[in-house]
């Protein structure tokens, strides 16, 4: 009961500032850019091969990795701003058992992240479908594949939000949390692949493709578990830090 109340409060926090609308605007802009690419873009040979098959169109609409990165930014900024504005203080006064309070915050952000991931994919699909009207190609992606893209993106974005929230909780500074995200999602994975080539299957970008059904290895279940693990580690670090330190 207490946890449900806390999650409701955290959800209200997310929906009573402009931040979600800013992120939705970014998603709309990405969808619009994709539509422009569909209408005006060509391959190197001048053809429109990049939209000529169902597989091509699925790749174009696969939003899971974008969703993960965007939701990670959303989670990191949302949490870091809680500390910047000290609004975490009333939260910890209502629920001084900080594990519960922080987990409620993470849960709400995962829901918010999933919504962003879903919305990002849905907007992109809609934009592509509309843009295809202006080309010689129709919308070829099956309902089943579209559903999988939506589900994969929602899941990836939920884990991204958790990852960002964990870093935001640990670092507590918006700039620092965003910088840490850049390192974790954009700099560290290629470095890891350079050190261990087999690691390529387990970096977030490839895991998002696997979850979307666009990469062979690892399988979908393994990809989902691995994505959750990527998020769980910073989340646990953040949770541990929040429980121990002073709020001053």
């Amino acid at each position, binding site marked *: 009961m207490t946890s449900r*109340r806390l999650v409701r*409060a955290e959800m209200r*926090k997310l929906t009573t500032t402009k931040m979600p609308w800013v992120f939705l605007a970014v998603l709309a802009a990405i969808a619009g850019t994709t539509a422009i690419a569909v209408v005006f873009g060509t391959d190197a040979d001048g053809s429109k091969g990049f939209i000529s098959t169902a597989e091509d169109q699925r790749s174009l609409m696969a939003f899971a990795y974008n969703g993960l990165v965007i939701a990670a930014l959303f989670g990191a900024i949302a949490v870091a701003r809680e500390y910047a*504005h*000290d*609004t975490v203080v*009333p939260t910890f006064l209502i*629920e*001084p058992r900080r594990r519960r309070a922080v987990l409620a915050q993470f849960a709400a952000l995962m829901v918010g992240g999933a919504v962003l991931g879903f919305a990002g994919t849905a907007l992109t699909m809609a934009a592509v479908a509309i843009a295809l009207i202006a080309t010689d190609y129709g919308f070829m992606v099956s309902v089943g594949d579209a559903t999988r893209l939506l589900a994969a993106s929602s899941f990836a974005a939920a884990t991204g939000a958790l990852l960002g929230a964990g870093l935001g909780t640990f670092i507590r500074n918006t700039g620092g949390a965003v910088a840490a995200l850049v390192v974790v999602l954009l700099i560290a994975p290629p470095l890891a692949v350079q050190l261990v080539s087999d690691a390529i299957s387990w970096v977030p970008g490839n895991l998002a493709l696997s979850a979307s059904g666009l990469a062979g290895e690892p399988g979908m279940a393994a990809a989902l578990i691995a994505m959750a693990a990527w998020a769980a580690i910073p989340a646990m670090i953040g949770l541990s830090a929040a429980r121990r330190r002073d709020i001053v």
Partner: protein
Amino acid sequence: MKSDPRITSSRGRTYGAQPRRRDGAAAALEIDHVTKRYGDDAAVQDLSFTVQPGRVTGFLGTNGAGKSTTMKILLDLASADEGTATIGGTRYRDLEDPARTVGVVLEPNAFHPGRSGRDHLRILADGGGFPTERVQEMLTLVGLEDAADRRVGAYSMGMRQRLSLAAALLGDPPVLVLDEPGNGLDPQGIRDLRGLLRERAADGDTIFVSSHLLSEVEHLADEVVVLNKGRLVASGSLRELQREETFVRSPSRDHLTEVLGSAGGTVQPFEEDALLVRDLSIDVIGNHAHRAGIELHELSPHPGSLEDLFMGWTDLTDVDGTLGAAKEVVSA
């Protein structure tokens, strides 16, 4: 802010003056040998005092004296290196329903500037499980109905302070811990706040208020706890503490200053031919003057202002750089 509120929640509970007498529901706050260090610096050192229910206790100290740190330790926002801080014998984190037990205003006020005042309270109501009607009730109580849907970023300091008070009162808690609640309030707001806190204390609530506005505390508090450099320098009934000064008029003021100073008194010149003396009782002062053959024209208890007392308590520290136990003023 409107004093003497009579507000009824959706559960039929009435908040306000007489109807909300609690009869022992409020709890004493116990600070027991608390020490908090930041690196080598002690923000609070071996601090012990009790805040009783049914009284307004003013928490005084210079900037950096450790007041906010003590409150944060009491509220489990900061951990003590040594000692314990409890509310009715229970640590804050172990309270069954903290949001309904303790109302808190802390400096600086914690608001998201882009969120409306109403939404801020709704979030707290959601988290605390309070009826949503309480949000409007508290907005009305603090006089923010008209500004409730504006962004907090556009609020004046006084409006933010009113919103903080609304948040603190949302759960109708029997204990209030307020850090500088009068900051930014206009005179009417301060007057209303004083009325509200006095009413709640009369109902049996525990009211613990830090403030640097000594005149305000003098009007408001029954008890005071005074810190200087992280240590307790005075605590007890304000009225009793104010009686601890003695006014002495004598044509031999300098000689008397010497005599009383060597007897352990703290002596301050007052007017042209008089002294204010602390740390010696009135009969001891008379005896010393008599034995030294000093003529006295007046010897009487002096109801010193809180400001005078406060300056004396904090001056004690500045003179010798330390606060020995003998310098502490603790009234029963």
